[in-house]
């Protein structure tokens, strides 16, 4: 633990260098939120409730979704793939640190940076500008834990794809495909309730819904009971453990094919 905390602090500090970038990311989010507002307003023009969700709930879901999206998108796949391709991974292999935990803590550091710099400013937008309110409830207290589990799942998937760099020169195609599958099937763009019933059933069995749908439902409908939230979190926990361990086993296999020609 003592050796991994400074790593997280390091990436947190690196984030501070790119203040200019935050400005544009926030601006991008504001534009996205506004477009989403107009889009959903036109969808809700003729009925107040669609698939059991009111406009207020849906917009809160989509708006906070875009704020949370920045947190859970780790880019670990791109970095790890780059480090493998360039042979930089050797720098980690000679140190007494665990590669997976190293990357996890590095990403956790940037998560904290993004939380303060982008997510919080974006998250207050729906309330301030669009007058959307969150109702109080148990979900609000469970949200941070759920978000942490979602981060673990998202990281494990990205880490797994990054490790594909041991076998493949190309990362663009794999990462892009993964990104699209995760964003669409996790409910990051539209609440899962909007999908056709048959597809919904399949989506609830996949790990992706545990990344966005679960934590976002806690913010959109926090008044629901623990009997609904706790099973959802149990599913999250199960996926987090399964994917984390699977990625670890994959690393142990993949590292064997690594050949680095000198320095």
């Amino acid at each position, binding site marked *: 633990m003592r050796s991994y905390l400074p790593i997280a602090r390091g990436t947190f500090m690196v984030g501070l260098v790119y203040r200019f970038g935050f*400005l544009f990311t926030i601006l991008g989010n504001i534009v996205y939120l506004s477009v989403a507002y107009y889009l959903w307003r036109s969808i809700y023009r003729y009925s107040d409730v669609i698939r059991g969700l009111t406009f207020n709930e849906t917009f809160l879901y989509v708006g906070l979704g875009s704020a949370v999206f920045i947190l859970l998108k780790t880019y670990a796949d791109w970095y790890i793939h780059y480090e493998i391709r360039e042979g930089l991974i050797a720098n980690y292999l000679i140190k007494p640190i665990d590669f997976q935990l190293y990357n996890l803590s590095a990403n956790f550091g940037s998560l904290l940076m993004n939380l303060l710099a982008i997510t919080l400013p974006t998250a207050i937008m729906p309330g301030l500008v669009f007058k959307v309110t969150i109702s109080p409830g148990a979900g609000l207290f469970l949200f941070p834990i759920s978000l942490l589990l979602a981060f673990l799942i998202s990281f494990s998937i990205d880490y797994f794809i990054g490790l594909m760099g041991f076998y493949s020169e190309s990362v663009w*195609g794999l990462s*892009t495909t993964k990104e699209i599958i995760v964003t669409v099937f996790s409910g990051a763009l539209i609440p899962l309730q909007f999908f056709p019933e048959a597809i919904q059933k399949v989506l609830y069995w996949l790990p992706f819904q545990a990344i966005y749908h679960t934590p976002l439902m806690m913010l959109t409908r926090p008044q629901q009971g623990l009997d609904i939230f706790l099973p959802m979190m149990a599913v999250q926990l199960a996926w987090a453990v399964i994917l984390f361990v699977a990625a670890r086993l994959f690393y142990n296999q993949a590292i064997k094919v690594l050949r680095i020609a000198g320095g």
Partner: protein
Amino acid sequence: MRSFAEYLRLYVIIETQYIKARMQYRADFIISSIGMFFSSLATLGVFWVILGTVPSLAGWSLMEMIFIYAFYMIAISPMQILFDHAWQIRFHIQQGTFLKYYFRPLNMMFYYMSEMFDLKGLTQFFVGLALLIYASIQLNLDWTFARVLLLVITVFSAALVQISIVVAASCAAFWVLDSYPVLGLAWKLREFSPYPMSIFDGAFRFAFTYVIPIGFVAFYPSQLFLRPEEVSPLIYFSPLIGVGLFAITYWIWTLGVNSYTGTGS
């Protein structure tokens, strides 16, 4: 000054070599094409899901949205295929490798952009074309010769608008070093161009029509084919808008290129 024909000949020679080199990585090409296929259909998937719950989006049916989306995919393909190197400007500037583009007796923008020919962008183009044909059949659109010509002209103008927005954003690298956030924003805006502009009001509709005219990338030109009676007269100026925007972008590029001083190494 070299002639246009000469540049065209050069372009074919450069890209032939580039494609030969890329074809060594066949798996990369296949995986990237699959990635492109999914990523280009993501927003369409959103429309499909939404229009499964409500009958229309601001009065536009699913099939009409597919047509607009197909137009969008075709219109953004030239940027993807021919101008993909724009994404790398920031790396070249940070690493100092941008200097080499000053040393050839060629137009710099031509030389720089010719270094990349994005094969996976072809996937986007052909998926777009297939969807356009599919939607046209479903909507019973009548494709006369004049209309095909109109399609070519509007796609050309729309492509120029899209190219201009992205290249201009990438030029930010000449002044701010890390242009990724600016480019990322321009890239994100692109995704809103198939939305019916009538869902926006006030400032946003104004901005998407006159300031960063993404409305001209897909929605406005598609209206010409779907509901000609509803178009605003502005659409007939779209070739002018495309060429004008590109001229501005070229001017920004020239300013940037002239102000770049290298990294000193």
